C-alpha cells in the first residue's frame, strides 16, 4: 500500500512537471545585462516583457499556453554570449532567441550556437554589416538597418554640419569595425577627409595617448564609435579634460544617458549622434509609448525600446503561425508573419492575429519601429535619426529613410 502511495505520488509529480513544461512556450532573450550596454538594458527588457504580457493577456500562445521569456546575460561580449545562448538552446530548450544586442555578441552566439543548432535568432539592435553575408542557413535576422546604411547617413550628417576633416576613434569589435569602415568610405567619397582612423580596445583606463596623436592630425571633430559604458564616455571625458577635442560625433552606441550623466549636457551641446530610429509618422507608435509609460512609469523614449518589443512580438507571431515550437518551422513562419502581403497587425493586436491565423489568413506585422519586411539576407530597411542632447536625455532632430 505504502509503495502504491509512493508510486502514485512520484507519478503525480512527474505528470505535474510534465504538463507544466508543456504549458509553457519558452523564448530566449539574450541581453547584455552587465557590461558596456548595462545602462541601455532596463527599458529594452521592459519592452520585451510588455510583448510577453500582451501575448499572455491576449489568451496565450499555441492554444492558450503561456508565453515565457527566459532572460540570460551575455555581457555584450562574445564568449559570455555564446555560453548564455548555449544555455538557452540546450538547457532551456527555447523555440527561438530574441537578441543579442551588440553585434559582437550576436555574431558570436549565432555562429557558435543558433546556426549549428538551427534556432531562429532575431536581433533587435545589432547593426554590423558583417551580419548580412554570414553563412547563416537563414536562421539569423535583425530588425534594424545595417550599418552600411547608418555609415552613409552619418557621413552626410557630418558634412552637413560643415565638418570636412574628422578623426575617427572606433572600438575593436564587430560593431565598431563595421560602422567605422562604412562611414570612412562614404565620408571620403563625399569629399570629406579622415585625418586619423584609430581603433582601440574597450575596458582600458586611459586613451590619452591615442587621443593626443589624433588631436594633432588637424581634425575639426572626433567621431566616437564606441559604447558609452565601455570606452566612449572615457574618450569624450579625457578629450575634454586635455583639450584634445571639443566637438564630438557619436553613433547609437554612444547615445546613452550615461554619457550626459558623466560628462554634463553643457559640454555636449555641439555633439550630435546617429542611431536607428522609428518612423516619425507612425500612429501605433504613440499608442504603444503611452501604454509603455503607463506600465513601467517611464522609458518609452529610450533607445531600442520599440525594436525590442517588435522582435519579441514577431517571434511570438511566428510561433503561433508555425503552430508548433519546432525551430525550423518557426523560422519558416517568420517571413510570412512579418512581410506583406497579409492583413496588417499592429502592436497589441495579439488576439486579432491569433483569430486571423486560426482562419488560415495571412498576416503582416507592422511594428512600432517600422514595417519589418525581411529580405533574403534577414535584413530590413529602416530609419536613421539624428539626435542631439536635450537636458538629461536626447531628442531627435532629423530622420533619414
Amino acid at each position, binding site marked *: 500500500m505504502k509503495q502504491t502511495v509512493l508510486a502514485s505520488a512520484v507519478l503525480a509529480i512527474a505528470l505535474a512537471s510534465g504538463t507544466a513544461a508543456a504549458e509553457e512556450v519558452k523564448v530566449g532573450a539574450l541581453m547584455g*545585462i*552587465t*557590461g558596456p550596454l*548595462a*545602462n541601455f*538594458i532596463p527599458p529594452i527588457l521592459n519592452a520585451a516583457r510588455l510583448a510577453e504580457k500582451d501575448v499572455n493577456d491576449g489568451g496565450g500562445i499555441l492554444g492558450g499556453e503561456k508565453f515565457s521569456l527566459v532572460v540570460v546575460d551575455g*555581457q555584450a561580449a562574445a564568449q559570455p554570449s555564446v555560453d548564455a545562448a548555449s544555455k538557452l538552446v540546450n538547457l532551456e530548450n527555447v523555440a527561438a532567441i530574441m537578441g543579442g544586442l551588440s553585434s559582437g555578441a550576436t555574431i558570436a552566439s549565432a555562429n557558435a550556437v543558433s546556426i549549428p543548432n538551427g534556432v531562429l535568432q532575431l536581433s533587435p539592435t545589432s547593426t554590423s554589416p558583417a551580419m548580412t553575408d554570414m553563412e547563416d542557413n537563414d536562421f539569423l535576422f535583425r530588425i534594424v538597418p545595417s550599418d552600411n546604411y547608418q555609415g552613409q547617413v552619418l557621413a552626410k550628417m557630418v558634412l552637413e554640419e560643415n565638418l570636412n576633416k574628422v578623426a575617427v576613434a572606433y572600438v*575593436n569589435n564587430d560593431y565598431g569595425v563595421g560602422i567605422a569602415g562604412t562611414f570612412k568610405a562614404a565620408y571620403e567619397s563625399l569629399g570629406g577627409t579622415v585625418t586619423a582612423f*584609430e*581603433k*582601440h*580596445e574597450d*575596458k*582600458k*583606463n*586611459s*586613451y*590619452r*595617448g*591615442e*587621443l*593626443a*596623436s589624433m588631436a594633432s592630425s588637424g581634425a575639426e571633430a572626433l567621431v566616437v564609435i564606441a559604447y558609452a*559604458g565601455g570606452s566612449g*564616455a*572615457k574618450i569624450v*571625458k579625457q578629450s*575634454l*579634460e*586635455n*583639450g584634445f577635442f571639443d566637438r564630438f560625433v557619436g553613433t547609437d552606441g554612444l547615445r546613452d544617458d*550615461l554619457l550626459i*550623466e*558623466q*560628462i*554634463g549636457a553643457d*559640454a555636449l551641446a555641439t555633439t550630435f549622434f546617429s542611431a536607428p530610429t522609428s518612423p516619425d509618422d507612425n500612429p501605433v507608435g504613440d499608442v504603444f509609448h503611452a501604454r509603455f509609460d503607463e506600465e513601467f512609469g517611464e522609458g518609452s523614449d529610450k533607445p531600442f525600446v520599440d525594436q525590442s518589443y517588435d522582435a519579441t512580438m514577431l517571434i511570438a507571431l511566428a510561433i503561433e503561425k508555425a503552430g508548433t515550437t519546432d525551430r525550423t518551422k518557426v523560422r519558416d513562419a517568420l517571413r510570412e508573419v512579418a512581410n506583406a502581403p497579409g492583413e496588417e497587425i499592429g502592436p497589441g493586436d495579439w488576439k486579432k492575429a491569433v483569430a486571423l491565423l486560426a482562419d488560415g489568413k495571412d498576416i503582416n506585422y507592422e511594428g512600432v519601429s517600422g514595417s519589418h519586411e525581411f529580405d533574403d539576407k534577414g535584413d530590413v530597411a529602416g530609419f536613421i535619426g539624428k539626435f542631439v542632447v536635450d537636458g538629461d536625455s536626447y531628442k531627435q532632430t532629423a530622420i533619414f529613410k
Partner: protein
Amino acid sequence: MIEFINFYLIPGITLGSIYALGAVGISMIFGILRFAHFAHGDLMTVGAYGALTVVWVTGIPPLFAIPFAVALAIIAALSCDRLFYKPLRELPTIYTVIASFGVALILRSLIQVIWGTESQVYVKGFQKPLVYFDTFRIATRHVQIIASTVVITGLLHVFLSYSRMGRCMRAVADDASLARVAGIDTDNVIRWTWIIGAALAAIAGVFVGLDTDVHTNLGWNMLLPMFAAALLGGIGKPLGAITGGLIIGIVEECVSYPFFGEALLSPSYKSAVAFVIMIALLILRPQGLFKGRLL
C-alpha cells in the same frame, strides 16, 4: 617629449599604481596561502562600490570614503576565507583556486544585486588638469593616486621589515612549516594577509573609480595584469609586486607612443602587453625580478 610625459607616462604611472596595489595582495596570498586568488579583482570592486555608497550618502570626496571601502573589503575577504577557503585549506590548493573563481562570481553577482549593473562615477563632469611650466599637465586625481601609492608603499615596507607581524609574514612566505615549528601563529598571519591584501585591493578599486568609472567588472578586468605584476615582482614579495605593477602599467601605456614616427604598437594591442611580459617571464625568469617563490 612633453607629450610623452603628459599623455603616456603619467597615465602609465597611474595605471601602474593601481596594478601595484592590487598585485600586493595577490602576491602575498600566493606566497603565504599558496594559491592564486582569482577573486582579488572583485575585492577591488567591493571596495569601489563601498566608497560609492559613502559618496552618495554623505557627499564627501571619494578619497575620504576610502576607510569605509577598506573596512567593507576586509569584512568580505575575511568572511570568504572563513566560509570558503578555510574548509579547503588541507586539500590540494587547486580546490581553493577553483573555489576562488566561485567566490569571484558570488561577489560580482552580489554587487550587481545590491548596486545594479550600470556604470557610475564618483564625481560628475570633467576637470581641467593642473598645468605647470606651461606644458606639464597632470590631473588632480592622478596626483592623488600616485602620491597615495608612494605613501602606502613606504608604510608597507616599514610594516614588513620592522613589525613583528610583518616579519612573521615573511617567515611564513619563505617556509610555512618551519615558521609553524618556530612557534608562529599561522592563523593570525593568514588573517593579517587577508586584511592587508583586501585593504590595498579596496584602495586600488577606489582609485580605478576615481580615474574612470565604477562598474561591476572593474576589478575582474584588471586581474590578468595584476597577476602578471605579482609574477614579475616575484611571488611572495610585496614590494616586488609594486615594482611589477608599475612596470606593467607604464609599459602598457607607453608602447603606443610613436618613438620612431610610428606607434610602436597599435593601441588596440595594449592589453596584450601584460600577457607577453607574463609569458616571457615564466620562460626566462620564473622566480621574478625579486627572487620570489617558484611556482
